[in-house]
């Protein structure tokens, strides 16, 4: 069992990597993957601290996050496929019809 600070640092690193992925990449699929990494980082923090305090509430919260992540992936990917069918691309720099 490590210090919770170690897990929190790791969680921060994962979250940071996710942010880089979301900001620096133009492919919508990679952005979705990076969002999943961010959610994973958050879950690590929840569970590590919960386990350190001997309280499973952290696990329950992480469980809810996973539920939301699954729903988000399903709908997000369905939207991506629909967009790809329409525009033949999932590069977000080219998906700018809502911009004016």
């Amino acid at each position, binding site marked *: 069992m490590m210090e*919770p600070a*170690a897990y929190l640092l*790791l969680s921060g690193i994962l979250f940071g990597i996710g942010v880089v992925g979301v900001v620096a990449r133009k492919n919508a699929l990679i952005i979705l993957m990076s969002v999943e990494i961010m959610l994973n980082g958050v879950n690590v923090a929840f569970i590590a601290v919960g386990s350190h305090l001997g309280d*499973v509430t952290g696990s329950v919260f992480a469980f809810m996050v996973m539920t*939301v992540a699954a*729903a988000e992936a399903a709908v997000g990917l369905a939207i991506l496929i629909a967009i*790809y069918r329409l525009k033949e691309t999932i590069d977000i720099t080219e998906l700018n019809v809502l911009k004016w």
Partner: protein
Amino acid sequence: MTGPADLIFYFVAALTVASAILVATLPNIIYSAVALLFSFAGVAGLYVFVSADFLAATQVLVYVGGILILILFAVFLSNRISTVKISNPVHFNWQAALLCLALFGVLSYTAVSTKFPVKPGLSYQPTTAEIGELLMTRYLLPFEVASVLLLAALIGAALLSRPEGEKERSADMEEPK
């Protein structure tokens, strides 16, 4: 438990972080998905370390068995093997790097500076029963809301991925009379 257990922790943490970095930087989207697999598996390993056994299995089941498969499907449906490499270059810009570093600085400062209450005598307890009980009592409302959310997502995804003019198409899928 010092010595080998710590070493394994550092190994798993390094695996998780390294594959996460690969996800965010690899130009080939399929390789990103593979790296994502190892990142998810590493996080599941970390959950085992903090004795969250149920969550570790859920992590593998939901992320590897569900989300990663969906992502792979989306990759297959939106790319061709020959076009995968050129289709998504990495755009590095310094604002992004700065933002990320600042964010990480704040997060790590908070993590290190927080004083956690020391609770000695913690052992590897099974958490499944406790999680189930909490979900059915104290967190019943969030649990129900989550199930409604999942149902909505299910219907929404099915509706979105259905091609236009489904009525004519579905006729050929019926049993031959």
